[in-house]
């Protein structure tokens, strides 16, 4: 099957791994990721103000491109996912906003949030199925204790993201189980890492991030997985005792496609 895939700015630069492994795993699982032509950066964060139009246009363009191809739109970066899903929700529910955006874009056919937006994790759970992922595993990670770090962007606002229970999520844990490892549940997996505050107040980011990594390690995790480049940066930068990797890398390892290039 084919889906529209929005990689996002960071996946082209600092988070190439997140992107590369996502593509390889998708291929292995029978999903082709098609990039829309000329996609633009989503802007990193969703501006909740209802009168902000310009900052949301790139998301709408990507959504529209997927609609034209009658495909789902899949993202892997948490930030892109959050921005695009929230924008799509606004297009569905805020008629005034949608009217103005459509006016601005001036396309023949107005867009009203018809495209289905999925995170790569949702693609694995709802489209591919974790059972199928499990069957595709060649290097079982049995015995490995892995903590999922969701951060804020994947889950919240939960009435829009609708990915999982925002207080007790299980989607990454289920993936970890599917690839044979043991998930470690710890309380700060859905708390903020500090995000872009790292830029001007690194101390604040440090306080937040180290709370997360300490808690994960304290609950016995050997490894933290995340879907967000900025989360990864913050957790690593602020002295995590345990490694932090993208979930796609872990999946690639399990599916035996991690070292493909070197063969």
């Amino acid at each position, binding site marked *: 099957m084919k889906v529209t895939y929005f990689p996002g700015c960071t996946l082209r630069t600092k988070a190439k791994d997140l992107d590369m492994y996502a593509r390889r795993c998708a291929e292995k699982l029978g999903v082709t990721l098609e990039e829309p032509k000329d996609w633009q950066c989503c802007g990193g964060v969703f501006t*909740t103000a209802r009168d902000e139009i310009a900052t949301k246009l790139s998301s709408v363009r990507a959504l529209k491109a997927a609609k034209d191809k009658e495909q789902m739109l899949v993202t892997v970066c948490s*930030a892109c996912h959050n921005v695009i899903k929230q924008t799509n929700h606004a297009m569905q529910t805020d008629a005034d906003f949608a009217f103005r955006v459509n006016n601005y874009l001036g396309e023949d056919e107005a867009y009203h949030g018809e495209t289905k937006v999925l995170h790569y994790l949702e693609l694995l759970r709802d489209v591919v199925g974790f059972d199928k992922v499990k069957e595709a595993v060649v290097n079982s990670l049995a015995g490995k204790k892995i903590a999922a770090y969701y951060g804020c962007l994947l889950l919240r606002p939960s009435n829009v993201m609708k990915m999982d229970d925002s207080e007790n999520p299980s989607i990454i844990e289920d993936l970890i189980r599917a690839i044979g490892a043991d998930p470690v549940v710890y309380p700060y997996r859905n*708390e903020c890492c500090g995000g*872009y*505050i*790292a*830029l001007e107040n690194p101390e604040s980011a440090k306080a937040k991030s180290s709370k997360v990594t300490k808690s994960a390690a304290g609950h016995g995790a050997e490894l933290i997985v995340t879907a967000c480049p*900025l989360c990864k*940066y913050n957790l690593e930068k602020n002295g995590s005792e345990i490694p932090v990797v993208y979930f796609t890398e872990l999946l690639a390892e399990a599916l035996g496609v991690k070292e493909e290039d070197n063969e």
Partner: protein
Amino acid sequence: MNKETENLRKEIVRISGVNPVKCMRCGKCSATCPAYDEMEYHPHQFVYMVESGDIEPLLNSKSLYQCLTCFACVDRCPRGVEPAKLVEAVRLAAVRKQGANHLKADDIPALLDEDLPQQAIVSAFRKYSK
């Protein structure tokens, strides 16, 4: 409330889509906020102060730039008030003023380190500048 404040209040309510009178003052937003300690005014105060028109202190407060829109307050508020959206609307009211950008392009190079993802820079720009 004078007319100017009243208009500002209405504008903030309009662009945020948040109705502050729904707040029942339980303080769960502030209980949940990860940036609480860095803030001078806390989420519940944003809600109360916008409601009562006491907006000027908020516009001038550094607290505006401490909220990371992590939506924890939005998700946990029992009344559906969505404080983060209100904070954002107040922040926009501040940075949309001429020359009031909290983050300027010239400041960036000094803040960078080589591992920092772009995402951080674009996000910060979006939140702090106009």
